[in-house]
């Protein structure tokens, strides 16, 4: 029997994470804002129904928020990252292989016997163990599993699970899916397809291969095969943390102050970011470590490492520096003679892999990229760090605005959930 794939997708993941620890949020419209409380980056089902769009600037929707008693929260990536790891670890022992596709999605390779019934049990288990509701779509290819997931999510009668292998009229289902919603297509390519009269996944499935290749290139041809049930996109099991870019260095003399460590780490981060950009890669996770000199046995020893999931993948130096410094401050303990600090960027993805529309939708992306390009060019010409960011030499206040963040319930001893006895 051929491999089948499942796509497990957490429902309204960030909102669901918040609700696990704050039951009062259940049933209420909830939106979560980006770093610095700028835009809406996650919505509960109730908020979606109020018509609050994704990416909406918070200040433009104040009236809607107030009128509908919408709960507005800052993002809490420590919590989401930890809850994501729990969901993934709950899934992993049950399947042959798994690809963590994003913070809230995983592809699973299924065994022969693992169908809709198995998916329903898995769904219950994830809900019980972690509190996070998920939807599961099953199909002969990753693209079809994605589509199955989408339908499962939109059709409450399905109870969160759909196995396309047991659908009698698959084409009728595919006819519900507009091209722009197919994995890897997006708005821009969908417009090209529409010009040729191809509007739905069903149209595309039956389109002429030569025309699709001409219109969408190799990528489109692959999508076509996948829609026809021929798997072209294998599970990418390579655990993300193995692919990474590191930048670290031992200090010439021991360093004690946070300011000096911050300068050093900013410099290493800028270097790592440059490496990322030269490979046209984006990082999804940032790891920072800090250590004293293990050979100075008379000194008190301290070493720590910590990581975070970025709000969105980035290779932009200021984004990465901000994340790195935040982590450094978390693990820094005064009174030690530090020998080494460094950064490790993982969960890498090619810039081109990011869905184009997603990229275009991020405000200022074009200008940010231009800035990075200029900085890299000058540094190549004038020598490393000729152009530098403030924190690399001058102390800066990087404090992020996060006025309405929930507690770091699962990663800080002093922020544990409180239960009344």
């Amino acid at each position: 029997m051929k491999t089948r794939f499942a796509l497990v997708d957490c429902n309204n993941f960030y909102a669901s994470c918040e609700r696990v620890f704050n039951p009062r949020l259940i049933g209420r419209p909830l939106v979560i804002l980006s770093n610095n409380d700028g835009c809406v980056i996650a919505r509960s089902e109730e908020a979606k129904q109020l018509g609050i769009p994704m990416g909406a600037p918070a200040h433009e929707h104040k009236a809607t928020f107030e009128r509908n008693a919408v709960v507005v929260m800052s993002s809490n990536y420590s919590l989401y990252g930890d809850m994501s790891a729990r969901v993934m670890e709950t899934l992993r022992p049950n399947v042959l292989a798994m690809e963590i596709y994003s913070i809230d999605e995983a592809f699973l390779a299924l065994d022969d016997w693992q169908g809709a019934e198995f998916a329903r049990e898995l769904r219950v288990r994830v809900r019980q163990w972690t509190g996070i509701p998920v939807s599961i779509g099953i199909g002969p290819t990753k693209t079809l599993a994605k589509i199955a997931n989408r339908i499962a999510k939109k059709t409450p009668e399905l109870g969160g699970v759909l196995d396309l292998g047991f659908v009698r009229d698959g084409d009728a289902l595919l006819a519900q899916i507009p091209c722009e919603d197919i994995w890897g297509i997006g708005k821009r390519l969908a417009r090209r397809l529409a010009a040729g009269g191809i509007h739905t996944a069903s149209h595309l499935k039956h389109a002429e291969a030569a025309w699709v290749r001409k219109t969408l290139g190799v990528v489109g041809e692959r999508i076509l095969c996948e829609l026809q049930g021929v798997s072209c996109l294998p599970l990418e099991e390579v655990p993300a943390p193995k692919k990474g870019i590191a930048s670290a260095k031992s200090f010439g003399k021991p360093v004690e102050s946070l300011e000096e460590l911050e300068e050093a780490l900013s410099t290493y981060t800028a270097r790592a970011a440059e490496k990322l950009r030269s490979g046209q890669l984006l990082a999804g996770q940032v790891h920072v470590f800090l250590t004293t000199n293990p050979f100075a046995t008379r000194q008190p020893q301290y070493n720590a490492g910590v990581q975070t999931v970025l709000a969105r993948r980035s290779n932009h130096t200021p984004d990465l520096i901000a994340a790195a410094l935040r982590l450094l401050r978390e693990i820094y303990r005064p009174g030690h003679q530090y020998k080494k600090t460094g950064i490790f960027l993982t969960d890498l993805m090619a810039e081109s892999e990011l869905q184009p529309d997603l990229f275009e939708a991020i405000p200022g992306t074009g200008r940010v990229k231009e800035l990075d390009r200029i900085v890299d060019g000058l540094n190549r010409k004038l020598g490393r760090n000729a152009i530098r960011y403030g924190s690399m030499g001058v102390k800066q206040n990087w404090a992020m605005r996060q006025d309405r963040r929930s507690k770091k319930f699962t990663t800080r001893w002093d922020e544990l959930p409180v239960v009344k006895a």
Partner: protein
Amino acid sequence: MISGDPIPFEARTRLRIPLVSAKVQAGFPSPADDHMERSLDLNEHLVANPASTFFVRVQGDSMRDAGICDGDILVVDRSLEPKERQIVVAMLDGDFTVKRLRKREGKVFLEAENSAYPPIEVSSGQELVIWGAVTFVIHQPR
């Protein structure tokens, strides 16, 4: 690969594994060398299932007679099916509470372990969700 989080919990724990024996450049080898074992990791004892285990902080003294005091940390495992008489963390009408779960004559009660607090009978109109089962109490003696 960097491991370790500021919170020693789950697979992120750093296990110190004293495999390196005493150096044998000069002097005598340690008589304990042949008997080295891995140091104990408290996580192995307290956390059977890392993915489903959470820590919560207790506020109040209604569970005092069960050895749960104000300020204690509870280890809560959500993967365990909550059984009759088990101490559970429950969500009752939007609040988190720790109580002993009792079922009698088709009714559900949340019982305190302190005579000053009467048992709570969960009425059909109330919303009760059992959040997880308490498996350990971490208490610092004063």
